[in-house]
């Protein structure tokens, strides 16, 4: 038993997005003088800082927003980037973590619901590639769905990475110097991850249980305009 755990345990890694490209998900929601601008995209934190202003100016010009938006957009992006960079120096424990990632998003007229397992330890994973393949396989015609899917995956990965940093800090504070199984249990205690040992032990099979089949199946819905309007109205109400 112990040998299994210790092979699974990795030493603390410097914080980064657990993907091949260290990209940050950026969400913008700016209201100014009655106009609302909502957007979500991925950003490479190793790009020089002047790119932020360039991007803000381009976006404002393309979308014909009032010029005051430039500073607001730039500030929002900068603050999210600096949050990300604040985490960068710290350690995180990834453990043996396979987590379910849930997708539940609506982009224009397309609704996507999906759930799948993602290996947090795989630092070569590529949400963009996954999103592109997903859209191609499901025959999604709207090209804006791909980036939204990639963004959703990244956001969840980012959340979990932050949590693991927090938990690493906690465990270091509470249990100074002790190694080994403690860390394994700390990561298991997050509740989200699946227990690999149980999953792949010789007693159970790799085939999914029937009750889980519906959950793990991707669902794509094409909505009509009225349904879209109804959903949007409901979202606005919830937001308020």
């Amino acid at each position, binding site marked *: 038993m112990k040998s299994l755990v210790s092979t699974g345990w990795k030493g603390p890694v410097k914080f980064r997005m657990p993907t*091949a*490209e260290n*990209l940050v998900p950026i969400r913008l929601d700016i209201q100014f003088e009655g106009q609302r601008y909502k957007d979500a*995209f*991925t*950003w*490479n934190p190793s*790009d020089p800082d002047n*790119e932020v202003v*360039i*991007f803000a100016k*381009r*976006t404002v*010009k*393309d*979308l014909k927003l009032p010029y005051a938006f430039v500073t607001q957009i730039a500030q929002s992006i900068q603050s999210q980037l600096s949050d990300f960079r604040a985490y960068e120096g710290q350690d995180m424990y990834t453990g043996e973590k396979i987590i379910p990632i849930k997708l539940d998003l609506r982009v224009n007229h397309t609704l996507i619901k999906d759930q799948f397992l993602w290996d947090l330890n795989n630092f*070569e994973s*590529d949400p*963009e*590639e996954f*999103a*592109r393949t997903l859209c191609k396989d499901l025959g999604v015609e709207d*090209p*804006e769905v*791909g*980036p939204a*899917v*990639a963004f959703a995956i990244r956001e969840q990965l980012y959340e979990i990475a932050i949590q693991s940093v927090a938990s690493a800090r906690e465990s270091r504070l509470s249990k100074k110097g002790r190694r080994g199984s403690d860390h394994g249990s700390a990561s298991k205690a997050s509740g989200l991850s699946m227990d690999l040992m149980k999953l792949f032990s010789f007693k159970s099979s790799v085939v999914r249980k029937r009750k889980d089949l519906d959950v793990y199946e991707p669902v794509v819905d094409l909505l009509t305009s009225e349904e879209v309007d109804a959903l949007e109205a409901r979202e606005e109400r919830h937001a308020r």
Partner: protein
Amino acid sequence: MAMKAPDSGGSGEILPITHSLSETTSGVAAASHSPQPPSSSSDIDTIYVPSYSRWFSWTDINGCEVRSLPEFFDSRSSSKNPKFYLYLRNSIIKQYRDDHPRKISFTDVRRTLVSDVVSIRRVFDFLDSWGLINYTSSASAKPLKWDEKEAGKSAGDAASEPSTTVKETAKRICNGCKSICSIACFACDKYDLTLCARCYVRSNYRVGINSSEFKRVEISEESKIQWSEKEILLLLEAVMHYGDDWKKVAPHVTGRTEKDCVSQFVKLPFGEQFVKESDFEDGLEAFDQIKGSAIPESEGIDKDGSSPNKRMKLTPLADASNPIMAQAAFLSALAGTKVAEAAARAAVTALSDVDEADKNASGDSNRQETNAAPSGETTRNDSERAWADAKSLIEKEEQEVEVAIKETVEVEMKKIRDRIVHFEKLDLEMERSRKQLEEMKNLLFVDQLNIFFHTRKARTSEDRVEC
């Protein structure tokens, strides 16, 4: 990956291209066009691509792409690979062509591509500068020069570089020891030699050349601190085109760092553009030194002509008047000042006759030409004459416009007059019919009276009979 050497953009020809995708409906056979770019509004289905982007192919990556966007090709990251670059590039171009002739914006593109936005922006800007997206032939005039320059740069093709750089590279590599001269060098124009101080002293030159043939040229002052007129020219052009982007301005002004460019630009006195003119005069001076003809005071340039000059000075920088200036200088060096002046004057009159539309601009640029012809006083007369010519042309135009307006007004007046006549006729008719009506009323009244009298008479006669 096939690497094809790109053509150095020369004439700025543009060609329409075939869509290799079956889904688009606007397939057009490739045909080459005459150098005069046709208006793209004439045929919405044809997509025009500038000739310097002829290398583009859907499945291949060209050398210039590798050079301009190295991040995708240096295998620093596993996901930023050539295949990913192809995906980005092809999706952007496809999206643009589907929506043609509407221009595509960066935000449209980055919303539909799965990638980090800064990479998308770099590919987008690259395609934009090469005219593969958002290219309209009407915009071909000015950006063409810059795209050519970029094409020339990325092709690394020294032959396509403009002649100004050739003049600058004549800046001081010693023929004797093949090292870059600093401090001072000695130039012999007779045999076109440049020697550094050391070689000169050591007499490291060919037999048959006298040491007196050499002219001493100071370098350290010139190249380090002072800006030559050519460099200032390049600087202003670059600033006009690139604006605040000093990173791009600096390489355009060859040999100067960004800081130098910025400080020089700030120092440039824009109020007195003729100072730049006088710098140019100094350049001509260098040309003429050999002949020994003295250039009269460069301050003889007319100062009252300078205010329209000021305005015009910056814009002609970007277009053809530089070669003209150079030509005029060359001519004056070759054929003597008088001849060049006469030639320039003839050119002025010819131009003002031919070019009605750009008469103002040509008038000013001709003024510049005549200014370049080095002689103080007659320059003034020439410029005044040219100015007078321009003025007379303006007056002529004004008169024509007046005549046209007069005619229009007359026509309108005639219309109104006709209408008035018509109304008068109608009025007459009305009167007539009213009179008729009156008469009829009168007649009726008379009849009524008669009847009344008759009846009355009848009644009275009846009464008389009865009683």
